[in-house]
Every structure is written in C-alpha cells, then in structure tokens.
C-alpha cells in the first residue's frame, strides 16, 4: 500500500558538503514504511524537473510519525530539493518498492554499504536488533564519511574504510567483510552501494552459499511499475531471463536473481 501526500518538512540538516537529510512529518507514511522502501519526491512544481526523484528511506520514526531520507546533490532536482526549507510541504509518493529487506532474527549478519548507498541500511540495522550485526562502510575519502556514530550505535562491529586510506582502514569494504566471514561465516549479507561493490558482494555470496540481498537503483519514471522504465535483468532457477522492475519488484533483490 502506497499513498500520495503533501508532507511538511520538519527537519533539514546538511551532513557534509552536498549531502542533506530531510525529515518529513507523516504518521501514515511512517506506519506504512519498511526497511528498504523508497519515496518518489516531487522536488518542485517547475517543469524543469519533470520526474519525481526516487530516494530511499533512511529512518522511520513510527512513534513521532516522521520519515527521514538522505540524498546527495547530483543534478538539478536534488539541488532544488536541497534548497527546500523547514516548514514547506513536499509532495511524496510512498512508501514504494515491494522488495524490501528481510528482517528476521538471523544470528550473524553482514551489512555492507558504499558511498551514498549506506543510507537505507540504517533503517535495516535498526530492525535487526536480535542479530549480531557486522557493518562495513566504504567511502572514497575522509571528506565523504557520514553516519559513523549512528552505525556504531547499531552495530556489534563497525569497519569504516576509505579507498585512499585517508580515514580509518584503507581498502574496499568488501575485503574487510570477506576477512571476517572467513573467521566465522555470515548467515546473511545485505548490501547497497555502487555497482562494482554489489557485483563483488553478489559473486562472494553465491560462491560461499550465503543468502544476500542487494538494494539496486536505476533511472526511474513512475515508481509504481507502470512505465516499466527501471528494468533490471533477472533469471529464475531454471536460468530463464526476464526483466523485472526496480521500483515494483525491488529495490531489494535476492543476489541470486539479478544479472547486474
């Protein structure tokens, strides 16, 4: 079930240069949202930005009826969004995506995120309280590191790495995850981030027979499965290939299912 509502912006914070958090007041939206869901946000009434912007949900506060998302300014739409002010209304379609993270009490899980892909993993981690959570977050450099404290609080173990070694560990997040997995196998892996990272997680998970869930992104139109713009190639257990849609069947997919 998804709804379309004008939601008031009740909070806005600049996390680092070019990355903003916006909090929306909506009891209904908070009630309906699950970890992995995303919103389609109408950034303005201008026709300059014709399509809504799909942005994943970072935090769901059911008690206070608040839903939060974090985004990076990448183009016209996100630039306009970053200029919206507290008190203004934002038209939102959501929560969207029928493929969300599974939040069963697995014993030992790995959460791996890269860059701006780490944000939907926050709400996921909040919902895995009964699991041993090992989180691996990778960033290009120290200037791009965000949410360290938030993930520290939610994780039993947190490894932050940067590609250039300018902060904490040097290297790719997946390499630290692999190292820990070789000591004791994970029961499940959750991942969101750049495509090369997702491909590496997918290959590792399949090779080691670990169930893995990947949150994907694709250029999106309607967000509800009607325009079939955000296609991702999938295969079933017999190897038959078929396009599914990130907005409708995802954004979270079983790693075995997608061809990325």
């Amino acid at each position, binding site marked *: 079930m998804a709804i379309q509502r004008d939601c008031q912006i009740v909070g806005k914070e600049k996390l680092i240069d070019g990355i903003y958090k916006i909090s929306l007041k909506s009891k209904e939206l908070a009630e309906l949202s699950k970890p992995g869901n995303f919103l389609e946000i109408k950034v303005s009434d201008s026709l300059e930005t*014709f399509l809504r912007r799909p942005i994943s949900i970072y935090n769901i506060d059911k008690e206070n009826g608040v839903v939060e998302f974090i985004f990076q300014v990448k183009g016209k739409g996100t630039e306009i969004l970053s200029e919206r002010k507290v008190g203004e209304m934002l038209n939102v379609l959501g929560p969207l995506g029928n493929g969300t993270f599974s939040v069963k009490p697995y014993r030992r899980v790995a959460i791996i995120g890269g860059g701006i892909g780490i944000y939907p993993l926050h709400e996921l981690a909040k919902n895995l309280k009964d699991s041993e959570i090992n989180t691996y977050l990778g960033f290009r450099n120290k200037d791009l590191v965000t949410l360290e404290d938030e993930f520290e609080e939610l994780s039993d173990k947190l490894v932050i790495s940067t590609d250039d070694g300018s902060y904490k560990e040097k290297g790719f997040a997946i390499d630290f995850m692999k190292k820990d997995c070789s000591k004791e196998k994970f029961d499940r892996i959750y991942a969101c981030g750049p495509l090369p990272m997702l491909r590496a997680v997918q290959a590792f998970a399949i090779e080691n027979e670990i169930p893995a869930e990947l949150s994907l992104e694709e250029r999106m139109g309607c967000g509800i499965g009607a325009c079939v713009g955000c296609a991702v190639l999938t295969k079933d257990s017999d190897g038959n290939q078929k396009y599914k849609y990130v907005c409708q069947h995802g954004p979270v997919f079983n790693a075995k299912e997608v061809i990325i």
Partner: protein
Amino acid sequence: MLHGTFGYGRNHKDFIDLNKLGAIITKGTSLKPKQGNKPPRIAETSSGMMNCIGLENPGLEYFATVDLPFLKQYDTKIIVNCFGGQEGTIENYVEICRQLNNMDIDGVEINLSCPNVKAGCLAYGTTYEGVKEITSRCRKVLTSKPLIVKLTPNVTDITLPAKGAEDAGADAISLINTLTAMKIDIETRRPILSINTGGLSGPAIKPVAVRMVYQASHAVKIPVMGLRRNHDRRRCYRVYDGWSNLCVCRFK
C-alpha cells in the same frame, strides 16, 4: 488513461479509483510476451522525458487470463493497444486483432507509432499506403469492436497517415505518440538511453501535438483523439473543443 503510461491499471489502484475513468487504453500488447530494451530506458529533459522501453509486455494470453479479469471488476471501458510483436509483421497485427475481436473488451487501438522497436510500427505508420494497408487488414478481422489507429508524429505530413486510417475503415485515430529524441551525458559523451534514441513525451511536445491534432482533424471526418496528460484537463478540452470531438487524458 493512455497506452504506455498506465500499464494494465493495476499499479495505479492505490492512487486512483479506476471506476472514475472513462476508459483505459492498455499498455501495448503483442501475441507473445515481449522483452523490452536494455536499461537505461528513461531520461529526463526540461518539461518532458524520453523513453525507450521497447513495448515490453506479458503477451495476450497473460492479459486475457490475469489483467482482463482484474480490469473487468471496474466500471470503465477497456481498450487494448496492440502491435505485431517482435517480428512486427502485418500477419501478427491481424492475428492479435482476430483474437481481440472475440474478447470481452470495448475497443482495439493498433499501435503504428512506437519509435523504439526494430520492426513494425513505424515501418507502416508513416505513409498513407502503409497505414491504409495494415488498417484495412485489421479491420477485416475486427468486425465487432471499434478500431482506433494510433499515429506517430514523426512524419512530415500527418494528414496522409490520418487519411490512410480513415480510408481503410478505422473508427477513430489517436495522436500523438512520442517524438524521436536523444539526450547526451556530457560527462561520458555518450547517449543516456541504451538504444541511443527514445521517444519524447510531456508538456515539451504539447504544441506539436496540438498542431497535429488540428491538421488531422481537418483532414478526416472520423473522430480524432487528442492525447494529453491529465495535468490540466479543462484546458485540454478547451484546446480541442470545436475541432473534432473526443479527448483522452494522459496520466503522469
């Protein structure tokens, strides 16, 4: 609600009461399931968007067994947009029309206008002769349903395909489909869409659509369906009022 923008209605049921719609024109449907183009299939531009979906659809059997029973629950007319599948042959158009003729639907729209498939559609849709031939063959088998021909704007003179449809016995024509267009990523210096070009829709093409509906409605006597977003419905009727008659609105 127009073909390609509304799927088979199911996805919009959370947002719209389907009973309130006069008619739904389904997504373009072929005899067999058809896979669309590789992603990226969508690119935004000022006042519009481009797509190169490639008429992906689950096929007529799926429509008949899953989507049609779903749509029949609602008080709305069902018009099926159809095309000649992967091969795009006239025979395929005729066969799907023959099968649709016996289904519990309210009309058929043949798609002669998709710019994103390799075969069919534009091969017939851009000339008087092409439209006339395929329409007359579909007309022969489509004896119990209204036949609408959806035209492409990617022509020099829209009155020629419009007359082709009328002379072949179409009950109405609908226009316009998208205008072929392209967007380049300035970082990679490559086209954004997977097949390089796509179809441009949205407010950006409204003046072109208005001009073509005007020209077509003066060239034929059959109803002309001017296709628009539902963004500003009253204006839509005002624009087309006095020319032809019917106007279907497009969902965004």
